[in-house]
């Protein structure tokens, strides 16, 4: 896939492109678990955002800062408490919530720090995963979850339905929910969480605190 601006011909992650569609131009964005800074870079190029990142890996932080991104070394579970309320227009957590120790607290912090939160995650409710577990009786391993359970950092995997329940529990509102498959194609299902949960390999949610 090409960069939307037609500039650098670099491959963008499918969920990053979907997140970029949700972000208003010029917004202040905090990317929690920003990795190598690919999303921040994409958002800077296509949406001219004022972006910041938090990343747990020291090497990745250093690489981000050397590229000119504003990134600090930190931990989503520990360091979000330091940010004031409403400091950002969007607090983004892309494919990271399942690897946090306290997903509920992290989500509450995101909704507090950002006027909106954007969360993407692998969907454990996808039919292929259900099928593998049903037939094999073992923890599923798929394109999206390639590691065996004893290595995987994903301590808190959830389904789309589980996530919707958590959103209700923390008293937030879903503004947009997109399920997509590994090639980044959006599923043409908009209004049925049940069907998104069965056919979506991953999902991106745009949330707003109440």
């Amino acid at each position, binding site marked *: 896939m090409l960069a939307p601006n037609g500039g650098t011909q670099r491959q963008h992650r499918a969920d990053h492109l979907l997140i970029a569609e949700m972000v208003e131009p010029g917004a202040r964005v905090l990317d929690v678990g920003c990795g190598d800074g690919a999303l921040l870079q994409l958002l800077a190029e296509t949406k001219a955002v*004022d972006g*910041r990142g938090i990343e747990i890996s*020291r090497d990745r*932080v*250093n690489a*981000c*800062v*050397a*590229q*000119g*991104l*504003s*990134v*600090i*070394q*930190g931990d989503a579970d520990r*360091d979000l408490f*330091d*940010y*004031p309320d409403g*400091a*950002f227009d969007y607090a983004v957590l892309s494919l990271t919530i399942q690897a946090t120790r306290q997903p509920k607290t992290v989500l509450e912090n995101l909704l507090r720090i950002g006027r909106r939160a954007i969360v993407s995650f692998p969907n454990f409710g996808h039919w292929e995963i259900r099928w593998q577990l049903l037939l094999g009786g073992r923890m599923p391993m798929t394109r999206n979850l390639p590691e065996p359970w004893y290595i995987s950092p994903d301590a808190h995997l959830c389904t789309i339905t589980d996530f919707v329940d958590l959103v209700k529990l923390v008293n937030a509102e879903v503004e947009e929910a997109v399920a997509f498959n590994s090639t980044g194609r959006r599923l043409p299902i908009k209004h049925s969480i049940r069907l998104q949960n069965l056919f979506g390999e991953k999902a991106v949610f745009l949330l707003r605190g109440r």
Partner: protein
Amino acid sequence: MTAPARPTLAPVSTRVNEAQTPSSPHVTFAADTPLKLDCGQVLAPFTVAYQTYGTLNADKSNAILVCHALTGDQHVANVHPVTGKPGWWETMVGPGKPIDIDKYFVICPNIIGGCMGSTGPASVNPATGKPYGLDFPVITIGDMVAAQVRLIDHLGIDTLFSVVGGSMGGMQVLEWVARQSQRVYSAVPIATAARHSAQNIAFHEVGRQAVMADPDWCQGDYLNLDKVPRRGLSVARMAAHITYLSEDALQDKFGRNLQDRDRRTFSFDADFQVESYLRYQGSTFVDRFDANSYLYITRAMDYFDLAAEHGDVLANAFRGTKTRFCVVSFTSDWLYPTRESKAIVRALNAVAANVSFVEIESDKGHDAFLLNEPELFATVGGFLGAAAERRGLKVRGS
């Protein structure tokens, strides 16, 4: 005891000359524009000696202020007039270096209280015509910055593109933002802390007591009596030097190796290489540094507590700042450990400041900020480059 061979160095008089009539450019602020000090006294007249590198652009937007550490000075990227050695940060500042003097105009002032031309205890007290000695008022990091503000005003620069410094230089960076945030576009505090810990103060006290225990210190009046408290200042430097290195770095460099001998001498001679190294460090330091300056500057560092100046809440020091920060620490620095940098980052996050924070893996201890650390260079170069782009900095050739 046989002292280790000392290199041939300029005589003490050269150093005293540099303190009183510096070879660097310098500006003297007259008695009618005094520097009001935190201790309540005033310094007037006072001089700030400084070096500059590169060219100030037409709209004066490319100036970077480099703040030096305790025993540093303004000679950041040129041959030192007393020691003849290269500048102390030539790895960082120069053409094509992370602080690129082809793009930026770099200013490095000697701090007040120093001994390389800015007013300090070795300068002549206009009231007596003799060196100040202990008549020099006790200064703070804030006073050093206040003097730098006057220099920047004098140079006609409104906003500094960046203020950069390591160790005590980093304290000045933080103080600059706390006092003059709107004049600092970006800030790079490296291997530093927002306050001195009990351990930091303790080590400094050992150094000061060593100086003051030397009979040649003469209650601070040694310059008038033509003496140098060589032994005391040398011991202070030896103790401090240990704190600049990591345990691993010392062990790797020296281990238990013996110096120029095959066996122990059963004496108090410098049998071990590490002893010889420290004696050398102490001895060369005395040749280029004023003992009273050492007392005053260590005191200023001990007094530094940015939170205390802002209602005991560090975040208050940075409230409303638009400055872009890049905070850097080193894994093996036990003098200003990473947790001190993290406290600064937490305070900056609490006011939603724009901050990058990098902890660099190094086994070289606190000294790492002065050494060849490619990750440090990539961080500072990348950060400044991105800030320059965001500011739309106009530099020659672009």
